């Protein structure tokens, strides 16, 4: 184990390690974060949800977006898979359809960061608990 010899060493070590704890820190207060849910049922995975999920993870990490990404089961929109639900704090959830890697990037860049809506939003007419 490398020695920590100064305050700067400790800070650097903490910064390096923060990422591995990030997922746990964020789960501690989900209400204050953007919650992104990727539908990862058979239908979703077959349409490429796994690639979308990976792209979102990378993008969120790169842009340092305060978001927590989880996978969910089938949301019922099997015809429109892969689907991604985004809930920003204080907003109603929005479900995006036919998401691919490119669109995943747009969701982060436009909807999450700039609050611009994109095409392909499914009407949400259910409630989650």
């Amino acid at each position, binding site marked *: 184990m490398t020695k920590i010899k100064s*305050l700067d060493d400790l800070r650097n070590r903490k910064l390096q390690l923060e990422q591995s*704890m990030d997922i746990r820190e964020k789960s501690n207060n989900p209400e204050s974060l953007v919650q992104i849910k990727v539908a990862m049922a058979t239908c979703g995975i077959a349409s490429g949800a796994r690639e979308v999920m990976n792209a979102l*993870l990378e993008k969120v990490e790169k842009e340092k977006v305060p978001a927590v990404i989880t996978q969910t*089961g089938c949301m019922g929109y099997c015809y429109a898979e892969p689907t991604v639900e985004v809930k920003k704090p204080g907003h109603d959830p929005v479900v995006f359809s036919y998401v691919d890697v490119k669109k995943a990037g747009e969701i982060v860049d436009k909807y999450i960061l700039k609050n611009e809506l994109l095409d392909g939003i499914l009407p949400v007419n259910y409630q989650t608990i």
Partner: protein
Amino acid sequence: MYKMQLLVCGGTGCRASASAQIVENLNASLKAHGLEEDAQVVTTGCFGFCEKGPIVKVIPDNTFYTQVKPEDAEEIIAEHVLKGRKVTRLLYENPKTQEHVADSKHMGFYQKQIRIALRNCGFINPENIDEYIARDGYSALAQVLADLTPQQAIDMVKQSGLRGRGGAGFPTGLKWEIASKNSADQKYVVCNADEGDPGAFMDRSILEGDPNSIIEAMAICGYCIGASKGLVYIRAEYPLAIKRLQIAIEQARECGLLGENILGSKFSFDMELRYGAGAFVCGEETALIHSMEGSRGEPTFKPPFPAQSGYLGKPTNVNNVETYANIPVIFLKGPEWFSSIGTEKSKGTKVFALAGKINNVGLIEVPMGITLREIIYEIGGGIKGGKEFKAVQTGGPSGGCLTKKHLDTPIDYDSLVAAGSMMGSGGMIVMDEDDCMVAIAKFYLEFIVEESCGKCTPCRVGNKRMLELLEKICNGKGNMGDLEQLRNLALVIKDTALCGLGQTSPNPVLSTLDNFYDEYLAHVQDKVCPAGQCRALRHYFINPDICTGCTLCARNCPVQAITGEKRQPHTINQEICIHCGVCYQKCKFNAITVQ
């Protein structure tokens, strides 16, 4: 980077229910499904919800699986991790609505809690110092070493209003200041991890779940009082806590966070463990110090206080585990933040170990000033089996009972003392209508008699006499003079015993005498135990309408107290009966009644 993490409780309770096997099976299933890159299994400290252990918590959606068995691992991986479907049957069920609770944020058990001392328990892997560092670990120490003089740091602890969490609630900052002002060539920082109260396990859980917080706090204390040596006095019955503390000390040394010139400063600090044999009296600081020196664990008169002359005659600061666990947070978040929580004279939070007849047995951390009602009915989920609440014993053998009339009293150091009890280390044993308070007082006295070190007469002889009186009362042979005598003895012991443990040992008796005098009267005057617990006061009768004369009871009675003709109703001779209850257990027709 992992998409998911599965936190598995590695506390003593959950490990006893095979949580180590769960970790192994989860890892095997992840591998079988090729998900090792996606999800990670982490062993953590105690989640506190011991009632429903073993616990597996899935991050980031906070799914809280309870009573998980090793064979459930495959289903959790295949359903939850792979397909994103929660395994409903393993979710916590709200006892009131019978509904499954999807995540821990919606569980009543956690909603009222503020976790400061337990901040990392059930969150980080206690055997990995990096996870502690990632959560601002050792930043408080670094900040203190870089920016503050010892006196400034002591002032911050004083401002926070932190009081000792191990018993009497002495202000921690003041204790440090006294130790810092006594000059000597060597001083010592001691951590009291000799948790002896029946039913209390918060110190063990902190050491098992977050050992680095104790190391960091002890180093800060060492800097403040001018000590370069830390000692943890821990009972040998806590093997897992010892193991994790040893790992943590080893890792801290490797990182240079213990040893010479910590973080480039002039401050050097190292620590060692000292094992105790688990004597209750060694929780008293002078007895603890004698035990560490290799002498008999017996208390000595104060003054001199350990801050003046402690371990090996040198100035020594002794604090309890939970007290230390609060220290780093006070520096990270500021004393003002800390003192904004709690009541006027009791700041911060307190960890309580809930035990007894309560639905959610476990470890909770709540702000000072919360009411007993909130603890028992909201966090604790109410009394087991829907029975009626009778009392809660706080402070262990040194404390007393709180009853229905105290349900809405805000709980802090001073209100508990005013109610005839004390904070103690934070054990809370809940009792319902079926518990006999005289028998409870007797239980605690038996504990005290067993654990009394025998040095001073009031504690050694006085408690023994009190126990004899209580046994007499429970056997239905007591008289009114005995009650008088009991109270007199208790008051004398309180005034004359040598150490804090002796002085508080009569508290359970005094408190039950005050709050449940009618139960004592029932035992003494009517020779009846209202709760039906005292065996000698139970009387068995055979209902002649139901008895078939099968002779089973008569054949099993150890003293031949039951007589009667075959196929005719039998009778019990009350003169001979020893109230053992064998006939009651043996009867196949429920013909025997207890009064």
